[in-house]
């Protein structure tokens, strides 16, 4: 197991969490345990997919974000807005209104992330054609998927396309532009509005690079609230501000399911969204069960970025609004009202030189120990413990499954007596006192859940 530190944006507020186990039961990598009545995350297993955030009934899972005021540390304050942000707003709010408000709340430049999606797609396609032997090649657009493959499918790490995401290209482009216009590099602050926690994590600790291309990340729900409030309270909008015309019609929907896949024409490719679906499919890919597979577009969220955990509103409605916008843009392109060639393509050469991420390394959470002999002993221990557990996956031990408890016990992170069935057996045998069982349960579930309600009546 790798000891590298990986930033996680998902946190659990222990003041709010009441240990309901929903997050633990839904975590696709079994990264959550309940200790002392609160959910806790095993950081090396977490891939930042946000499933826990989605299911948490109390709002205890939250996404750490940069303080909005930190934008004022910079003279030139650029906001990178993914197209999915515009999809949040009801139909009666125009893109130009959103742009105008963003410029009034403190930013000096607005730029749409997907401006570079076309270039990203050209470079990806080129890479795929040049690396036939590594097939199937897998998109690195979704950072949760990259992390999932690193920890759970290390054999597929070499199939990841090591090309930066559109947000990085756009950030590099705009930084270069501003410097050319005379800005001091230290005065430029680039902020990205993110639809999910994984993008934050990837920005704070990039998967294979040393530095990040953006200076800060703002959560989409926070920005939505700020922008919508301004729009609702305003009567007049600055008529001179129009929405930028940076993105082509096919790139507006790049972050939706099939967005990348439709920009290439490989014989056999799939676009799969939702992390459990992805895991199921990757199991088959890993076994070489699917022949002649060229390309995989994999996204952790249902409906891809429209279903990001920080988006506001229904993912299908967001998807529809983005599709409508793409349709309108396509019509304007057909009528010759707007060109499909955008200014960013003039910097193609410079961006191409800066397009590669470093080598993406596996950091398997499956491997029990680097030393095979130790790993084998651990494995036999886990199997032995597991064979004694009831296979009910009841979660009462504070682990998501009997197998997870067996693993925790083998690694001294938990005890056999955490199992409630084990406790009953030992009590019956006389080797464990009821008081001791209650104490064990208190350690897992906290004092409150084991109060003696009957006697206090």
């Amino acid at each position, binding site marked *: 197991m790798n000891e590298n530190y990986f930033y996680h944006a998902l946190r659990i507020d222990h003041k709010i969490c009441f240990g309901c186990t929903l997050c633990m039961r839904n975590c696709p990598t079994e990264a959550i345990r309940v200790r002392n009545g609160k959910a806790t995350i095993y950081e090396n297993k977490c891939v930042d997919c946000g499933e826990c955030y989605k299911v948490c009934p109390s709002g205890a899972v939250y996404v750490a974000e940069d303080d909005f005021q930190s934008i004022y540390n910079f003279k030139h304050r650029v906001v990178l807005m993914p197209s999915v942000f515009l999809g949040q707003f009801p139909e009666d709010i125009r893109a130009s209104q959103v742009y105008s408000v963003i410029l009034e709340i403190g930013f000096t430049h607005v730029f749409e992330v997907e401006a570079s999606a076309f270039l990203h797609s050209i470079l990806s396609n080129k890479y795929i054609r040049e690396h036939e032997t590594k097939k199937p090649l897998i998109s690195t657009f979704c950072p949760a998927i990259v992390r999932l493959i690193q920890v759970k499918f290390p054999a597929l790490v070499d199939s990841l396309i090591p090309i930066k995401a559109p947000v990085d290209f756009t950030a590099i482009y705009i930084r270069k532009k501003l410097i050319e216009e005379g800005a001091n590099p230290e005065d430029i602050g680039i902020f990205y509005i993110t639809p999910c926690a994984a993008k934050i994590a990837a920005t704070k600790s990039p998967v294979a690079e040393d530095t990040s291309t953006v200076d800060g990340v703002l959560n989409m729900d926070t920005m939505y609230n700020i922008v919508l409030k301004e729009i609702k309270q305003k009567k007049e909008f600055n008529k001179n501000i129009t929405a930028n015309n940076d993105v082509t019609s096919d790139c507006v929907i790049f972050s939706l399911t099939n967005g990348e896949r439709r920009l290439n024409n490989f014989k056999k490719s799939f676009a799969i969204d939702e992390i459990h679906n992805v895991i199921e499919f990757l199991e088959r890919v890993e*076994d*070489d069960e699917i022949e002649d597979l060229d390309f995989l577009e994999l996204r952790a969220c249902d409906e891809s970025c429209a279903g990001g955990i920080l988006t506001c509103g229904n993912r299908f409605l967001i998807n529809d609004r983005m599709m409508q916008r793409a349709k309108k843009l396509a019509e304007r392109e057909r009528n010759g009202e707007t060109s499909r060639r955008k200014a960013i393509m003039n910097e193609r050469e410079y961006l191409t030189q800066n397009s590669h991420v470093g080598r993406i390394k596996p950091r*398997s959470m499956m*491997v029990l120990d680097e030393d095979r002999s130790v*790993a084998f002993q651990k*494995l*036999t221990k886990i199997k032995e413990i597991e*064979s004694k557990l009831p296979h009910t996956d009841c979660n009462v031990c504070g682990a998501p499954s009997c197998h997870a408890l067996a693993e925790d016990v083998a690694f001294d992170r938990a005890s056999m007596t955490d199992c409630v069935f084990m406790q009953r057996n030992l009590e019956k045998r006389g080797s464990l006192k009821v008081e001791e069982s209650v104490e064990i349960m208190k350690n897992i579930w906290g004092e409150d859940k084991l109060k003696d309600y009957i006697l206090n009546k």
Partner: protein
Amino acid sequence: MKMGLCLFINFLSFMMHTEFIVVEGDFANAGKASSEIKKTLKQLNIDNQKIKKIVVAVYEAEVNAIAHAYGGTIFVDLDEEKICVLIKDKGPGIPDIARAMEKGYSTASAKVREMGFGAGMGLPNIKNNVDELDIQSEVGVGTEIKMIVNFNS
């Protein structure tokens, strides 16, 4: 799922024994044994290419027992150094093992071929992916395929 799974662990010799039951004609569950083996090997820090080879070989043998034999049992013995997989089926047996080892030789029925199996690549494919292969067969009784892959080779 009709596949049974039992587990014996012998602590003294650090061997792990697992068994899978294969049911004739149950193509829907083909790959269950190889998939379980994969999960186990992934935990032992064994080279990914090696795991792939083992999975392919076991999968081929599994399909053989489902498609061409009357079902059978897969015995898996694992220790630190190697994995040994024994597939015992309940017949009909292979009359000419040497010919069965030739690429493209097949006695599969039209029905099996229609399902995409029976191309005559099974045994040759297993041989390419393992270190040791031993096939014993008796017509009317059954076939025993024993394969060994060393982790260090």
